[in-house]
C-alpha cells in the first residue's frame, strides 16, 4: 500500500506539449508511472512520448479512464486547469505550476471541495510512492520502497531528506511535497490521517517551514488523531522575519509562524524535532527500535 498514488494511478498530463510537461512526462514514464494521456488544446491526435494528446480533460477521461492529473501549464492558466480536471471527474490533481495568483486558488478551493477532488500544490514538486508511481518532478532514483511516510513544504529539502533516509536503509511508503503557496490543496492534517490509515507506513517525517501555522495545526492534529511516530525538521530558523508574511498575515496566525513556536508545538505533541536534517534517520531508527 501507499497513499494517493500507486500502480492503479492512471495519469493525465495537462500541458503535455510544453517544455516542462513533455520533459517530465518522459521521466514519469521512465519511472513506471502509467501516463495514459495528455492535454493540449488543439493538439488532439498528436502524441508525446507515445502518450496520446487530447483537447480537453473531459475527452481524455472519457477515452482513457484517467483518475489523476498533473498540471504543468503556466501559472496564469493553472487554476483553470485544476477546475477543468475537477469538473471532468479527476480524483487527484497535482499542480506543479509556480506563481499561481492566490485569489485563483481561493476560487478553486470550494469548487474542488464540492466535487470531491483532492489537490496537491500548486507550486509543489509532486509525490511518489516508490516502485508504484511517481507523479511530479521528483528525482525518482533517490527513493526506495519502504515504511516511512514523508510530507514536506519544500522540494530540494525533501530530496535531501529522502537521500539520507535511503542511504540509511529507510525506504518510503509515499513522499508528498505539499508546496509552499499561501493557499494550497491538501495540508499536513489530511496527509497525516492518510499515513495513519495506511498499513504500510510505520513512521512519518514532517518537514516544516516558517510562516503560517500549518505545523502548529499539524501538531494539534497529531495529539488528537495520530498514533504512529512522527519526527520533524523545521527549515528557516534563521530566515528574516517579515519578508514573506504581511501585516495581517501575522495577525491571522497571531503568535505563530516562527520556527521556535513550531518546534515548541511539535515537542508538546510528542514529535521529536531534529536540529539538522541528517539527524532524522537516527531519530526514526530509535523510535522504530531498529
Amino acid at each position, binding site marked *: 500500500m501507499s497513499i494517493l498514488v500507486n500502480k492503479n494511478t492512471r495519469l493525465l498530463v495537462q500541458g503535455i506539449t510544453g517544455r516542462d510537461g513533455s520533459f517530465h512526462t518522459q521521466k514519469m514514464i521512465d519511472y513506471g508511472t502509467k501516463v495514459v494521456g495528455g492535454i493540449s488544446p488543439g493538439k488532439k491526435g498528436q502524441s508525446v512520448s507515445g502518450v496520446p494528446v487530447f483537447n480537453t480533460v473531459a475527452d481524455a477521461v472519457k477515452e482513457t479512464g484517467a483518475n489523476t492529473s498533473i498540471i504543468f501549464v503556466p501559472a496564469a492558466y493553472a487554476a483553470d486547469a485544476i477546475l477543468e480536471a475537477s469538473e471532468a471527474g479527476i480524483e487527484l490533481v497535482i499542480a506543479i505550476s509556480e506563481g499561481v495568483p492566490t*485569489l485563483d486558488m*481561493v476560487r478553486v478551493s470550494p469548487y474542488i471541495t464540492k466535487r470531491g477532488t483532492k489537490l496537491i500544490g500548486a507550486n509543489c514538486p509532486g509525490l511518489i510512492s516508490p516502485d508504484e508511481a511517481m507523479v511530479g518532478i521528483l528525482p525518482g532514483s533517490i527513493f526506495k520502497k519502504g515504511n516511512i511516510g514523508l510530507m514536506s513544504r519544500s522540494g530540494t529539502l525533501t530530496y535531501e531528506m529522502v537521500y539520507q533516509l535511503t542511504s540509511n536503509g529507510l525506504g518510503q511508503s509515499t513522499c508528498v511535497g505539499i508546496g509552499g503557496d499561501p493557499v494550497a490543496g491538501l495540508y499536513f492534517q489530511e496527509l497525516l490521517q492518510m499515513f495513519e490509515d495506511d498499513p504500510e507506513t510505520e513512521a512519518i517525517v514532517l518537514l516544516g517551514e516558517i510562516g503560517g501555522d500549518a505545523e502548529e*495545526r499539524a501538531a494539534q492534529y497529531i495529539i488528537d488523531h495520530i498514533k504512529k511516530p512522527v519526527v520533524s525538521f523545521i527549515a528557516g*530558523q534563521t530566515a528574516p522575519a517579515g519578508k514573506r508574511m504581511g*501585516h495581517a498575515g501575522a495577525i491571522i496566525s497571531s503568535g505563530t509562524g516562527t520556527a521556535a513556536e513550531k518546534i515548541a508545538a511539535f515537542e508538546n505533541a510528542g514529535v521529536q524535532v531534529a536540529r*539538522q536534517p*541528517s539527524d532524522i534517520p537516527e531519530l526514526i531508527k530509535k523510535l522504530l527500535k531498529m
Partner: protein
Amino acid sequence: MKIHEYQAKEILSRYEIPVTKEVLCYSVAEVQTAAGELGFPVVVKAQVLTGGRGKAGGVKLVRNADEATAAAEKILGMDIKGYTVEKVLVAQGVSFVSEIYAGITIDRNTKSAVFMVSLEGGVEIEEVAKDNPDAILKFTVDPDLGMAPFFARKIAFALFNDLKLVNQASDLFRKLYKVFIDTDASLVEINPLVVTSDGNLLALDGKMTFDDNALFRQPAILALNEPSEDEIKEIDAKEKGLTYIRLDGSIGCMVNGAGLAMATMDMIKLYGGEPANFLDIGGSSNPQKVIDAMNLILSDNGVKVVMINIFGGITRCDDVAKGLIAALEQIKIKIPIVIRLSGTNSKEGLEILRKANLPTVETMSEAAQKAISLSEDFLR
C-alpha cells in the same frame, strides 16, 4: 508588492470609500501651500514603504504655518528603517469620536479572505492582536458568496448600533472587499477608520499590499511599484531565475531550492556562523545561472566565503559539476569557496570537481563548518 498610503487612499477613493482631503508634497514649500489650502490643523505624514513611521517621528499634527514648515523640514529627508523620506502627505485634520480597524487578508486555513474589524483601531493592530486578541473580530468570507449585503451588515452590527453608521459601514465593507478582489491584494487595511464628530465614516489611513503572483494581470497596480535598492536586486535576480534576499552575515550561500536554502542558513547558524544571503538558484545546470548567482553574492562586500550547496535531483550531479566548473572559470573569484554536492550521481560529480581542484565536501554540516572556519580565517 507594497504601495504608499497616498496611493492606497487614491485606490480606495476610486471605489467611493471616503478618505481625508489631502495633498502629496515633495518639498517644504509644497507643504506650506497645501496646509494653507486645506486649512489647519493638518497632519504631515512621511510616505515610506515601511511600517513604524509614527514611532520614528514621521507623522506630525500641526496647527499653524510655522509648525507645518518645521514638520516638513524635519520629516522630508528623514531616514526610517533605511528608507529616505522623499515625499509627505499633508492631510486635513479631522475631529472624530472613535477609531475602528478594518482589514482584509487571506487566511491559509480557511483558504478564504478574512475580514477583520476592531473597535481598538488607531494603534498597530499587531499589538492589539498580542495584548487583546478578542478585540479583533474575524469573519471568513465565503469565496462563492463574496461580501453579501447581509454579511457586511453583520460585521457592521458587530461595531455599531446606530443604523445610519451600520449602513455606511456595510456599504464601505462591500467596497473594500471589491477593492481587495479587483486588485489581487494580499492585504487592504484602513486603520483608523474613524467615526467623525458629525457621525460619518472616514478613512484616515490606508494600506495595501498585493500578490506578486498576480501582478501580471494588474498593470495599473504594477505601475505604482517603487522598489527599494534591495528589492531591485531581488527583482533582477528573479528575472534571471534566482530568488535572492540579502542578509547581514559573511557567508554567501548558493543553494538549489528554497527549503534547502533555508536549511543551509539554519545549518550555518547552528555552527555559529552568519549567512550573508538567501539565494535559491532553482533547478537546471546552466552555467549562466551560476555565474549570475555568483555575481549577485559578490556584489555584497560583507561576503567572505561562498558556500555552494547543491542537491542533484532531476539534474544529475555530474552535469551540475560541469556547469559549476564552466561558470567558475569565467569569474575567477578571490574569496574561498566550499562546494557540497549530493544526490543523483554525486560520486561522479564530486570526482569531476576534485579533478578541477575545487574544494568539496559530502555533507551539509561539513560544508557549514568548513565555510565558517574559512570565514574566520579571513577575518583573522
